[in-house]
């Protein structure tokens, strides 16, 4: 593959009438990388994935996937990539095995030929191979969709929000499956609205309102958080938030579970903050300095942008 890159994106924009779904996107993905596209609904994740999989034309800009131009060489791209759309798009009235067979045949291969590649995942649903796909549970549908997306041994696998609406345990299991696929040398490009999944990727692009906030390793994204971050615990998070928002030293404050994460204006003395909290009735509040998570960084980058 040229220059060790699986995906090269140059100035991609996509406009739907006056709506700017994507605005001047630039980044690349290395061969064999697990790359996460992370952002909320409506950020432009699906538009970008559809462009990279040759299913949607960009308004402007270019992209190369697997060495092929997404517009000129779309037929070649389709042969060498796997794509798992956000919405379950298999045939409900075909059985598990018929679906897999169908996708294998479309790509000119057989289940037998590439069985090794999908074995880990497919073997979990193989006992139900005669069941109609529409009658599978959510988790099993997901495994079948992933098997179908990989049956032709793609070089790059695109997954559009595979874990949306999936419970925390199943999400963890899904990421373990992805890790195994990556270990087989397949480049993975996965989108998600769950910020905590960022740390499972080699690199991430944070996306919001059609623009990229940052592209980096999760570790470096966290390093770029440029204020000391504190966590404050109190019994009553609602009043803690209210009281801290009223404090002039507060720069940003957000709830995180049973604590808040807070940054202060330069020159703030933390002892003064603790005294203020005691005075406002948070007798058992506990303040400590913490390492930011990706979600802290995302919110800071969002605030800077707006």
């Amino acid at each position, binding site marked *: 593959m040229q220059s060790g890159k699986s995906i090269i994106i140059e100035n991609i924009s996509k406009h739907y009438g006056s709506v700017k779904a994507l605005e001047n996107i630039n980044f690349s993905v290395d061969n064999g990388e697990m790359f996460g596209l992370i*952002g*909320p*609904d*409506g*950020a432009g994740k699906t538009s970008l994935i559809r462009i990279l999989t040759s299913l949607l034309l960009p308004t402007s800009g270019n992209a190369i996937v697997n060495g092929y131009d997404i517009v000129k060489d779309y037929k070649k791209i389709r042969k060498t990539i796997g794509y798992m759309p956000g919405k379950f798009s298999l045939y409900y009235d075909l059985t598990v095995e018929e679906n897999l067979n169908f996708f294998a045949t479309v790509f000119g291969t057989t289940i037998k030929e590439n069985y090794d590649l999908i074995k880990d995942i497919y073997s979990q649903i193989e006992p139900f191979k005669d069941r109609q796909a529409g009658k599978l*549970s*959510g*988790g099993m549908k997901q495994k079948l969709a992933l098997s179908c997306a990989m049956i032709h041994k793609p070089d790059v696998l695109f997954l559009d929000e595979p874990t*949306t*609406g*999936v*419970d*925390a*345990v*199943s*999400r*963890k299991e899904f990421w373990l499956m992805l890790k195994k696929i990556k270990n087989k040398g397949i480049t993975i490009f996965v989108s998600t*609205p769950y*910020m*905590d999944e960022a740390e499972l990727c080699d690199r991430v692009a944070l996306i*919001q309102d059609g623009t990229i906030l940052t592209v980096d390793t999760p570790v470096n994204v966290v390093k770029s958080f440029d204020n000391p971050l504190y966590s404050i615990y109190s019994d009553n*998070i*609602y009043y803690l*938030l209210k009281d801290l928002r009223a404090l002039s030293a507060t720069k940003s404050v*957000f*709830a*995180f*579970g*049973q604590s808040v994460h807070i940054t202060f204006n330069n020159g703030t003395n933390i002892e003064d903050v603790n005294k203020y909290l005691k005075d406002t009735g948070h007798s058992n509040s506990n303040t400590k300095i913490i390492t930011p998570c990706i*979600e802290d960084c*995302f*919110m800071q980058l*969002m*605030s800077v942008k707006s």
Partner: protein
Amino acid sequence: MKETIITVRNLSKKFGDFIANDDLSFDVYKGEIFGFLGANGAGKTTAMRVLCGLSKPTSGDINIAGFDVYSQTELIKTNIGYMSQKFSLYEDLTIDENISFYGGIYKLSNKEIKEKKELLINKLQLNAVRKKLVRELPLGWRQKLAFSVAIFHEPKIVFLDEPTGGVDPITRRQFWDMIYEESDKGLTVFVTTHYMDEAEYCNRVSIMVDGKIAALDTPVNLMQTYNAKNMDEVFLKIVRFS
């Protein structure tokens, strides 16, 4: 003495041989934020439909805001609000029209609707866009409006089914601010979510596994009981090992 607003005793719901809810018993207190968690397929939606009066249980005694789920479902429906991630507003109606429509459904008078609508639109700062179709609103705003519309008729309890899925992290927190504010005023909030940090925002949390309630307590107590540093770990331990 805490006032109970939802009483569930031995709720079971079967579909043929399949037991979706297996002998559930719990109380929810007035003004509480009650988190209803569980893995996909654990039976949350089935239970929630029973509590909303949309589906009859196979057996059990269930009382919602003072009304019985077998004989008083219409009264239950007028005393609760409901919002889901998938559908809660009409995308091809304007913001104004959506609010009026819900007010009308819940039999508020035209005068009441008009007054309350102005208050709501001012509070959400939607004046400039009130004549726009809901589909033109960003998702975060839509979810805030959907929550406000779900409690427009001042229900005693509001059921929120994954209200913040896919919403950006700042808007997600603004949404929880609204929940806190209403709960502080006495509204009971019954909420499902897949975000484990949101589980920690709840006063108490129940976790369902295979149709049963496997754990029910405050987040702090659950973390202690399961020797976990956050709710994510609690959830993993319960769902994976029970």
